């Protein structure tokens, strides 16, 4: 039964931001008379605010800042929703409102289930208390009863792998242990709606794997999960639905992979097929000035043709280039080194290079290229990450109707079936295909 568990209607949240008057006018008017005048004005404004029961804001001028503007969406029971967006898009504010920590300025939220939020790892942990005591403290703060914590105590300790240090004060824990313990307590919450805010940002790879595994288990139990993260790979594996926020507004709502694609398309990464060196980027002895790429050919033999213009400022030893190619989640999937020995002579002036990369069979999607030039693998002269993007439209496999997903990688190697034989009595061959049990 997929009924709606959370309804958000026209949600808006306003904050007041104070500014000091522009440093120009502050610097110009530093006479005592002006300073006193400004301070009296500030005190008068604050007094009026106190009388009216408003918030007092430090600064000379006060401006309204809308963290959320008319956000509306619905979440169904059992759905795993990933919320993505740039920093400052309003994701944390939205979660705070859903967790009832702060009140909206306008709009309404209807919740049909109990919410447990994990907005910060280790909320309420006291450094002087031991690990054991902090488990009870943190669990109680997150809403678990003492009986429940006792019941799950051993599981929590096993998940966190801190048996040896359980009775030591938490201030002596390493940051990894601290984070593991904090997440272990929160992971054993059993709410109807779980809200998680960027907690994967801390911790090593094992920890992140554990967190993802646990969250997968939680969503497998049919609970509704709202997950905010900058880790696109995690969002893709965990979430089916996606919500993209930008500057306080909903930019896209739909499936998680489409939301990620929209997000990457909006970000400064995909800049099209021509790259020009911005003035703000300093030019080293040899550096890229202009790069343009195009994709030619037909699947599964596509070629990426890169036209590179480099400028050499001062004479330098010979160098060579490399191109890294990233997939949709911006993970690097391969590196092309067209010539392994330094070949770019460094006469002062422009050098034009045309590089042709024979692409392996790639699944359809948007790919991004990094460009690098250096004297040696360990000596970089210039490096432009995520300079340009290109799109692969057709599938590399002929006759394939089911769409590719990046869950199974970006490269489809060429492969063909050599034999397929069936060991049986031989009399019942239906289509003349034989299976060899061990080899196949």
């Amino acid at each position, binding site marked *: 039964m997929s009924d709606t568990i959370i309804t958000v209607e026209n949600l808006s949240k306003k904050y007041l931001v104070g500014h000091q008057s522009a440093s120009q006018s502050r610097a110009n008017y530093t006479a005592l008379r002006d300073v006193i005048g400004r301070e009296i004005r500030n005190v008068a404004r604050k007094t009026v605010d106190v009388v009216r029961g408003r918030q007092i804001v430090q600064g000379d001028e006060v401006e309204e800042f809308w963290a959320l503007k008319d956000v509306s969406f619905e979440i169904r029971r059992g759905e795993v929703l990933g919320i993505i967006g740039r920093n400052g898009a309003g994701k944390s504010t939205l979660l705070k409102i859903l967790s009832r920590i702060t*009140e909206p300025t306008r709009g309404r939220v209807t*919740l049909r289930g109990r*919410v447990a*939020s994990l*907005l910060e790892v280790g909320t309420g942990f006291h450094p002087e*208390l031991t690990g054991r005591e902090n488990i009870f403290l943190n669990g109680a703060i997150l809403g678990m009863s*003492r009986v429940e914590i006792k019941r799950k105590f051993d599981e929590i300790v096993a998940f966190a792998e801190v048996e040896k240090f359980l009775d030591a004060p938490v201030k002596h824990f390493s940051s990894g242990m601290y984070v593991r313990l904090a997440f272990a307590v929160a992971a054993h919450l059993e709410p109807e709606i779980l809200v998680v805010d960027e907690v994967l940002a801390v911790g090593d790879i094992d920890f992140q794997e554990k967190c993802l595994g646990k969250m997968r288990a939680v969503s497998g139990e049919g609970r509704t999960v709202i997950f905010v993260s900058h880790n696109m790979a995690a969002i893709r594996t965990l979430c089916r639905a996606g919500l993209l926020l930008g500057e306080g507004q909903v930019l896209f709502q739909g499936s998680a992979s489409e939301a990620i694609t929209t997000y990457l398309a909006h970000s400064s990464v995909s800049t099209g097929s021509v790259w020009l060196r911005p003035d703000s980027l300093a030019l080293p002895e040899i550096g890229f000035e202009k790069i343009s790429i195009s994709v030619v050919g037909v699947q599964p033999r596509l070629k990426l043709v890169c036209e590179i213009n480099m400028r050499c400022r001062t004479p330098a030893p010979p160098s060579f280039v490399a191109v890294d190619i990233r997939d949709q989640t911006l993970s690097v999937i391969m590196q092309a080194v067209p010539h392994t020995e330094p070949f770019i002579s460094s006469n002062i002036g422009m050098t034009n290079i045309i590089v042709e990369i024979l692409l392996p069979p790639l699944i359809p999607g948007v790919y991004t290229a990094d460009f690098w030039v250096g004297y040696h693998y360990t000596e970089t002269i210039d490096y432009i990450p995520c300079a340009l993007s290109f799109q692969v439209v057709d599938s590399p496999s002929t006759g394939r109707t089911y769409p590719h997903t990046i869950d199974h990688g970006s490269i489809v190697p060429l492969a063909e079936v050599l034999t397929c034989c069936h060991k049986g009595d031989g009399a019942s061959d239906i289509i003349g295909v034989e299976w060899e049990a061990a080899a196949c």
Partner: protein
Amino acid sequence: MEDVIVIEPGRHERNYWIDLWRYRELFRVLAWRDLAVRYKQTVIGVAWAVVRPLLTMVVFTVIFGRIAKLPSDGSVPYPLMVFAGMLPWTFFATGLSEASNSLVNNANLISKVYFPRLIVPTATVVVAFVDFLITFAMLALLMAWYRVLPGWRMLVLPGFVVLAVVASMGPALWITALNVRYRDFRYVIPFIVQFGLYVSPVGFSSIVVPEEWRLLYSMNPMVGVIDGFRWCILGGQAQLYPPGFAASVLVAGFFLWFGIHRFRSTEKSFADLI
């Protein structure tokens, strides 16, 4: 049973008190946390909880009993009279001071977790109450030393304890809510407590207050509490002034209602201001 929660600006939670019951464990846990942290990494540990009031009591007896021989109610020894007054006063002063700063001290919880915020100042009053109980045990020792037997009036003592709790919770809730928004109140509280110490019958008996000022003086809710404590503990030697006592109770009750009201109306904005 599906609980539907609607979040809207300006909406008062209808199930706030149900939520308080649901989160009742947190009262105990936060109070336990404050108590547990106090004696961490100390040598004599929890023994400090007893040593401090014990030393206070000894110093009292020596200074007020031997050195400064001041008049007291009837034939009750002066140190006992002062101690019986100090007991509720210390509870009130500690409760008020700690509770007033409790919200700001727990800012990390307020900005990251949901629970009814009323629990935070109440937990600090619970901590002050634990100290009160230990000091009460010291009082019992002192009474044994002076061979003052408790009368039937001791049975009414819990009532006065409740009055002391009410008297400290009311102003504490009001001020802690104000303190989140206007941090000036952090500096106001020590002053109020100091001032209150001289205006409340801790170091003197209410008898010395002239008749015409009695009612105004009784507006201080601690007057009713301290007089009541003395009346209970010291048997027939101390007197209770009924109209004054009624005035103290009314003022304490009013402040409790007012404190809760102000706290709840500003509660929603705590996370934004803290």
